[in-house]
């Protein structure tokens, strides 16, 4: 892993524009994804994880609006890409695997054609034989027999459809694959197979992954580093193992306490009381303070900033850490 980041996100701000209101879904976040790294974004529904992912791929559409900050891909400013540059950026440099494999595939077109389409859109001079050979190769990579290339999406199980989506994401050998809840709809055994497959492919091809899931256990197992988001802000960034063993932010700790363990004594977990604030009525000071059991007077006045946390080698935004 080299030190130069593949993706740098600086002060990224994304708004959702209403008729007479603007909600800030992502409020000035900073993080890097290094080459070959799996970076996870954790947090409750609505915290802005997927909004960040969409902004990185320049897929934000109205009413969403990237209103500030920068995204740099290998030093280039992604937010000012021309249409032509953007076309090269999407899919051949950064590809996407969505949660719902059912909706990501066209039900009336053979999967081979869908894979070939993705290749041809970016490699217009490729011959039919070449694209077909590549599709077969991709099927092999994700563990599906190339004999099934001419089948339609409905002829595959949910897990296989998600494998096909991963194959499509790999088609042009991108540097980064954004995976937004790639295994959430799947059974646990299928999920295990797919996540191991992704790990194997990642080791082989060296791409980076931006991984989004609400399953913190899975994220810690798969990712190298994790950013924890709350109400549109990053509250902690740390190596994956530290999220469990040495969580610095009270929200990270509370999130960790929301998952019943599979071993040890059975006892009652309290999780996180309350629910995240509405983006149109954000609290003063630290956004987590109304739900935080450890809040002190300064928390409700002043928003804390991310500061290095020597204990984890990461960063956290909490007044208690000073």
């Amino acid at each position, binding site marked *: 892993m080299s030190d130069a980041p593949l993706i740098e996100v600086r002060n990224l701000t994304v708004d959702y524009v209403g008729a007479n209101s603007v909600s800030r879904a992502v409020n000035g976040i900073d993080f890097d994804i290094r080459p070959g790294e799996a970076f996870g974004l954790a947090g409750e529904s609505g915290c802005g994880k997927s909004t960040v992912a969409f902004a990185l791929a320049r897929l934000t559409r109205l009413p969403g609006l990237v209103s500030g900050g920068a995204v740099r891909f290998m030093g280039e400013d992604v937010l000012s890409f021309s249409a032509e540059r953007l076309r090269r950026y999407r899919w051949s440099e950064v590809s996407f695997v969505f949660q719902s494999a059912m909706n990501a595939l066209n039900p009336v077109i053979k999967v081979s054609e869908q894979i070939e389409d993705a290749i041809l859109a970016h490699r217009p001079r490729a011959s039919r034989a070449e694209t077909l050979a590549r599709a077969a190769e991709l099927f092999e990579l994700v563990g599906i027999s190339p004999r099934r290339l001419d089948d339609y999406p409905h002829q595959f199980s949910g897990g296989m459809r998600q494998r096909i989506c991963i194959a499509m994401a790999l088609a042009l050998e991108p540097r980064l694959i954004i995976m937004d809840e790639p295994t959430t709809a799947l059974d*646990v055994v299928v999920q*295990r*197979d797919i996540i191991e497959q992704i*790990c194997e492919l990642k080791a082989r091809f060296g791409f980076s992954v931006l991984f989004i899931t609400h399953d913190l*256990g899975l994220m810690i197992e798969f990712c190298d580093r994790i950013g924890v988001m709350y109400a549109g802000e990053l509250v902690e960034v740390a190596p994956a*193992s530290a999220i*469990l063993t040495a969580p610095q932010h009270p929200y990270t700790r509370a999130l960790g306490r929301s998952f*019943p363990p*599979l071993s040890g004594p059975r006892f*009652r977990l309290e999780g996180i009381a309350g629910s995240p604030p509405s983006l149109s009525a954000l609290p003063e000071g630290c956004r987590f303070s109304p739900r935080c059991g450890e809040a002190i007077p300064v928390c409700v006045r002043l928003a804390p900033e991310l500061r290095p946390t020597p204990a984890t080698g990461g960063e956290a935004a909490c007044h208690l850490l000073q």
Partner: protein
Amino acid sequence: MSLAAMTPPAASEPVLEMRDVDMRFVLGGLVGKHTTLRALSGISLKLTPGRALALVGESGSGKSTCARMLARVYEPASGEISFRGTDVATLTGKALTDYRAQVQMIFQDPFGSLNPTQTIGYILERPLRLHRPGLNGAEVRAESEALLAQVGLVPAAEFLKRRPHELSGGQRQRVAIARALSVNPTVLLADEPTSMLDVSVRLGILNLLEDLKREKNLAALYITHDIATARYFAEETAVMYAGHLVEQGPSQAITDQPRHPYTQLLIAAVPNPKNKITGAAVRRAADIPLWTAESRGCPFAPRCPRATDICREIMPDPTLVGDGHTARCHHL
């Protein structure tokens, strides 16, 4: 015979019981060309007041079919379901209405299970008026408010006026629970009640169900594919595969010392933050076999690392492997 007239069972006695229940579905419509799917094969389960039994297994293993049979949506092809000693299949008229009130379901999707055009007040009022006709208007309202307070939706008067789309997923699931409680049930059948909810909300719903189970001495069936929440909420866990119960016992014993190869596979697949994924990918997932009239042996045999010839011929009976812990495997 009215069910209410029967004496409530002692705490250790099951209130609702499935004995050797089989369920079949006919697949394919053409005469002489159809296949009979054996959705459940010889299922025996007991639900006890104040305790929860978790049913775990992959999609298509028959978990929801079990719940639907207990709710008398389907009649068993063979075997018996008994409620406080009475065969449920014999219930008719008033006794059946009573049974339907006593055994309540909570569904996975709180977006689909509440009528979007009605207020929460109306949604709670309906079962009260149908099953407790003695209540007058003011009593119905007071009861609705008490139910909402019980599931943590306060101020209750405020929630009565709202419609489902104004509530979050967790709040909707709380309304569904309040509706189930409105008729004073003795049994709750919860079919994946938390799988569509956010993590932080999930635990709140499980804790609420836990409190209600204790306070109201409810017998609960908890269907899930999440073996960690099964262990958290349910005292006992039963593992299903292709319509067969393959292992059953205290939840902690099932997760700490799983004995059936299928249970071991399931537990190994659960994300474990203490591990790091290493090594090459191995394919473990496979389709659950279509279990038909012709199928023989152990349904897990085609996927099982320990399978031998006998496994493909005979499904073993349950073997006692620990205190109240049984597994059905030739190679324990």
